[in-house]
């Protein structure tokens, strides 16, 4: 009996975060809808999702990295570098098929993610230091390969831009790509052995090693996936804004980390759900999208984001303490 009670409570708490987040999003949406009925229109929702797509794709990779107890600060510069490389190729060799360009972008991103993973697992660097270094290197290299010049809208081929602006059945490509990434991620995380081993590695690295999991390989894999998604979103970013600059996406890594934390991914590793980060990214998107709709200056955006994240992590700690306390109360009669 007592065990059952304990289980249900723990399960309840496990669901609590996503549920709380969902309730918060719904409440927020209703309030915004009352103040401005144009919020929940098809067009605006399409817009909102389109704007959230890149953030939510990156959140998948960041979640995996955070699950292994790491962090990746280099993603925004990796995006800029991979995107810039692709853009330069489009500018200088417009005859290359777009799909090949995309693959080159993906490959570049993956390569640098792989290097991050290698430095962190085999080189035993702290993730924050290794990826900080990588961030500098890639941001500088972006400038070098572009020689400080922009690639502008007219220099892109139409098919390149169409990757982000085109649509299928009225749904923007970015949304479709994000949906595909989420489906694959969900399958990978929940239904493949490798996916679960990444979680095991983060949940308890020591015993993962003892039970024969190649933890180094799991870490390298996570950072490589992060790199792959950075390469993907880098190319999409350039296509979407039809402009490649050496400071593209500067500082975007913090948004991604924040979306993950909002979505309930623990910085301590081992836990994080696809559904959670989707909601986290969505909340971020809504905060950005709705401020103008309800006549709040967009300059409030940052402060609101910061405050929401801070409150979310603190609320989480308080809830967890409550659970611990309840459990302790039961221990000695």
């Amino acid at each position: 009996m007592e065990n059952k009670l304990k289980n249900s409570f723990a399960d309840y708490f496990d669901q609590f975060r996503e549920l709380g987040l969902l309730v918060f999003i719904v409440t927020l949406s209703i309030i915004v809808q009352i103040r401005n009925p144009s919020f929940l229109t098809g067009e605006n929702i399409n817009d909102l999702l389109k704007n959230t797509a890149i953030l939510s794709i990156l959140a998948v990779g960041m979640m995996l990295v955070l699950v292994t107890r790491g962090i990746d600060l280099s993603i925004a510069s990796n995006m800029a570098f991979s995107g810039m490389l692709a853009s330069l190729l489009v500018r200088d060799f417009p005859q290359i098929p777009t799909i090949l360009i995309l693959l080159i972008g993906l490959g570049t991103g993956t390569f640098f993610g792989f290097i991050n993973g290698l430095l962190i697992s085999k080189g035993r660097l702290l993730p924050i230091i290794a990826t900080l270094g990588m961030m500098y290197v890639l941001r500088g290299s972006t400038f070098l390969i572009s020689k400080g010049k922009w690639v502008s809208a007219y220099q892109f081929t139409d098919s390149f831009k169409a990757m982000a602006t085109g649509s299928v059945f009225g749904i923007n490509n970015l949304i479709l790509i994000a949906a595909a990434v989420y489906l694959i991620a969900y399958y990978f995380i929940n239904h493949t052995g490798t996916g679960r081993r990444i979680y095991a590695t983060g949940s308890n690295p020591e015993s993962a090693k003892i039970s024969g999991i190649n933890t180094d390989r799991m870490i390298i894999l996570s950072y490589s996936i992060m790199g792959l998604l950075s390469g993907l979103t880098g190319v999409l970013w350039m296509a979407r804004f039809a402009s490649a600059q050496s400071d593209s996406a500067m500082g975007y890594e913090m948004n991604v980390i924040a979306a993950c934390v909002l979505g309930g991914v623990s910085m301590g590793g081992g836990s994080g759900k696809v559904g959670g980060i989707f909601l986290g990214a969505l909340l971020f998107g809504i905060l950005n999208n709705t401020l103008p709709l309800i006549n709040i200056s967009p300059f409030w955006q940052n402060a609101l984001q910061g405050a929401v994240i801070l409150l979310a992590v603190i609320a989480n700690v308080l809830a967890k303490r409550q659970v611990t306390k309840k459990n302790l109360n039961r221990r000695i009669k």
Partner: protein
Amino acid sequence: MNDYILELKNITKVFPGIKALDDVSFQLKPGEIHALMGENGAGKSTFIKVITGVYTPEQGEIYLDGERVKFHGPKDAQTAGIAAIYQHVTCYPDLTVAENIFIGHELRYPSRRLNWKEMYRQSDELLKTLSVDFNSKTLMGSLSVAQQQIVEIAKALSMKARIIIMDEPTAALTKRESEELYRVTQQLRDKEKASIIFISHRFEDMYKLASRVTVLRDSHYIGCWDLDAISQDDLIVAMVGREVSSLYPKKEVPITDEILKVENLSRTGYFKDISFSLRKGEILGLTGLVGAGRTEVCESLFGVHPADSGKIIFDGKERSIESPGTAMDLGIGYLPEDRQLQGLILDWGIDKNITLPRLDKFASGVWINEKNETEVAQKLFEQVMIKAQSVHAKASSLSGGNQQKIVVAKLLATDLKVIILDEPTKGVDVGAKSAIHEIMSDLAGHGYAILMISSEMSEVLGMCDRILVMKEGYLSAELSREEATQEKILEAAMVKTIKAGN
């Protein structure tokens, strides 16, 4: 057919600087429960890791069913049907019970997709055979240690393990939980025909379960006996390597005024209604099973985790102790159980370690006075007889016993009236052990009041003037030196509450 399901011959394993195993041999018969004993640091854990393929030995051979095998990693040993349940449960707290059971050998559909349905079903079945009442979708982190251990056993079963190693499984369990584990273990042997290596410090565990025992000491193989044929005393001699009585140089000293009195001290979830008093010159023992709340009581007295309610009366005045700083200002010192994690800065020299708690005392204002510091440290270094090149030698370069002496010196550097010692001789060699006991006796003679936590029965009986026993968060007995016997203590620790003595 072979006599032995598993045989290890002349295993030697070397780590930088030490030989962790030196020419160790071992035989396991099919369907037996074989106890492995030895003091902390004797090499048991390393030995287990050799069997499970975590370590590759430099020399020696491993035979499985008479065939010579070589494990290149834990995977190999798993495939061979060897599973281990470690001392510290090695689970994944963020994953479900089913995942913990099946990690590394997941069930899949032909498409290689994970077959969760089947994994949950089989896990629930395993849990049912082990008669537990939680289900396979529970998060591992929400289970108690005993429940987690049972999950580990389920995991071993799910891997069709023929050889199961249990590394101190009962260390953190209550009596009832231990019996549950005995039942499961016997069931493993009788129903599943598994061969089991059982490591434990508790003699009753062994005599209850095992048929044979192998003893290791200082990385060496000492011997293997049928349990029917060897007495507990002889086993102790085998483990310790010499007669036990000389280990306890207890001196008779006058016991004077009461210095510390604790009334109804409680901390939610850890201990409740603890009351006792302590007098100058007295050595008060605090014993009971691991997990009974002994350490937690002392941590509250020292202010690491203050108690929720109850009174602490120190030197006649009621005090609230909010932090270790306050406790030390009053004159209460604490020697923590885990000296490497809680007691020492391994990377620092002996001198800097010794002066850390009372840095301000050796400084001129806020300025560090290294000369003064070294002088004080040197004096204590000699007093506790640390064996090291100099007082500047790094703590990490010393043996366990000498490291413990540094932590003792740290206490002596402070102006104390009450000294709390938490398992002061755990994992130290015999020589250092008797040295630490001698220091304790001396301190009592100088009027210090000593509260010692110990799980070692002979140490408690040999050193203490009075003995408190805790059981599941409560004080279950208070025994004077004269009335205390091993049986009474065990009974109070495991079975029932005895009305306080006097």
